[in-house]
């Protein structure tokens, strides 16, 4: 199976070790990744989707048409990119007038958008296409004896009608079952299905309240679980959960928040025997306690 790899902006620019982890793991699991030359911003919700429909759907159509030209579905890790591309595709498929307009705008490129290329999140492909049985078979170094908690990326859950791939959007299981396939125990906590709050204008416009919001989640993880690390599958969740702990420690004046954070693809790569210096080398919170096992 061949898929167009939509990189987004944060992963290739700030956390390319995660990009490496995805490029190293997916082909071994039967998913070959091809580049989407000339892809642009998803578009981020704070950009064209906040100014007008015309530029919003033109940018969505630009990206979708690259995959359609290559006759592949799109693989995305970033939650915001996944949601924006999925919603853009949804609008273009629902509204003939808007689709015609975008195709007129795309004419000079020779590409068109029809909706034939689907948008898939990496955790969806791993869970529903590759499957946990196959993942168990490729694990060389399991996470036995370790406890994990899962931060579900909200953009992969809601609105389920457009982005959903879980049987029950309000009781997601994909990510925790994927983590169990690597041999770790998954602990539950009271704020498990709460958004990390890291995307969009919350952290910029109201930083103190945004930090307080995620602090409650981290407190719940510390007080209610035996978590050795947090697993997510979204670059925003990954960077926010990792970076905010340093800020919170400065606020409370002690190192209370020191939980390592991984993207699932990084853990998968480590368990498959890939080089930790390549697939999990960038973080704010030290991850040595986990990495030294590999």
């Amino acid at each position: 199976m061949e898929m167009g790899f939509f990189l987004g902006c944060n992963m290739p620019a700030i956390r390319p070790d995660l990009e490496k982890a995805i490029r190293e793991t997916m082909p071994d699991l039967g998913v070959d990744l091809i580049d989407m030359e000339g892809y642009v911003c998803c578009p981020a919700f704070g950009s064209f989707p906040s100014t007008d429909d015309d530029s919003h759907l033109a940018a969505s159509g630009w990206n979708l048409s690259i995959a359609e030209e290559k006759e592949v579905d799109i693989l995305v890790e970033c939650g915001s990119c996944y949601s924006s591309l999925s919603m853009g595709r949804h609008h273009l498929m629902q509204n003939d007038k808007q689709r015609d307009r975008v195709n007129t705008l795309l004419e000079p490129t020779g590409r068109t958008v029809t909706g034939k290329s689907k948008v898939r999140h990496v955790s969806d492909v791993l869970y529903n296409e590759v499957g946990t049985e196959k993942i168990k078979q490729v694990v060389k170094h399991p996470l036995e004896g370790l406890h994990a908690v899962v931060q579900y990326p909200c953009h992969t859950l809601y609105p389920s009608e457009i982005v959903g791939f879980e049987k029950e959007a309000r009781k997601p299981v994909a990510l925790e079952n994927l983590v169990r396939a690597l041999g770790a125990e998954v602990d539950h906590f009271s704020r498990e299905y709460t958004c990390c709050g890291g995307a969009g204008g919350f952290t910029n416009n109201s930083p103190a309240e945004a930090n307080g919001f995620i602090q409650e989640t981290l407190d719940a993880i510390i007080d209610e679980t035996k978590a050795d690390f947090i697993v997510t599958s979204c670059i925003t969740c990954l960077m926010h959960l990792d970076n905010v702990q340093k800020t919170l420690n400065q606020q409370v004046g002690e190192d209370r928040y020191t939980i390592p954070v991984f993207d699932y693809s990084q853990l998968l790569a480590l368990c498959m025997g890939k080089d930790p210096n390549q697939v999990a080398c960038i973080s704010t919170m030290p991850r040595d306690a986990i990495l030294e096992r590999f």
Partner: protein
Amino acid sequence: MDMNQTDPDLWKEIFNTDDLMYCYNCSTCISGCPASQADPPLLIRNLARKVILGLEDELFDDDTPWTCVSCSLCEEMCPMDVKPFELCLAVRKWQSRNDETRIPPSIVDIYRRGYTQAVGANTELREQLGLPELPVLSKLPEKRKQFQEMLMKTELINENAYMFSEE
């Protein structure tokens, strides 16, 4: 409140869908909304009321839609399918159309280089990790030109073309 000062047709300009009229103020969109804990709080239910009642001046100055994290939990949970997240974006769009100072600078970045971040700038680290050269717009001048020409034909960018000229 003086209802003579309101515009009963404002909703058609902002969010022209019957979905909105089914809102009965239950506040499901607020509980669970991260930005409802912001200062000032984003209260989507109040936003819906302002649009329905046509409180143009209040909406024009309302910064709270820009605090939304786009998680779309409100969209999932709304019992009346009002599509609160779409409403939030629609208010931002209406503000951007009517007040150029609302237009986010990120769209200029995307117009110029394709992305909000400087994607493709960290070549040394990428080489160390054995990653391929990025298929980014800055390395594809023909595609970059096509992208900019496409955007320049879209409504809001065309009207505000001066913002996008290269220095």
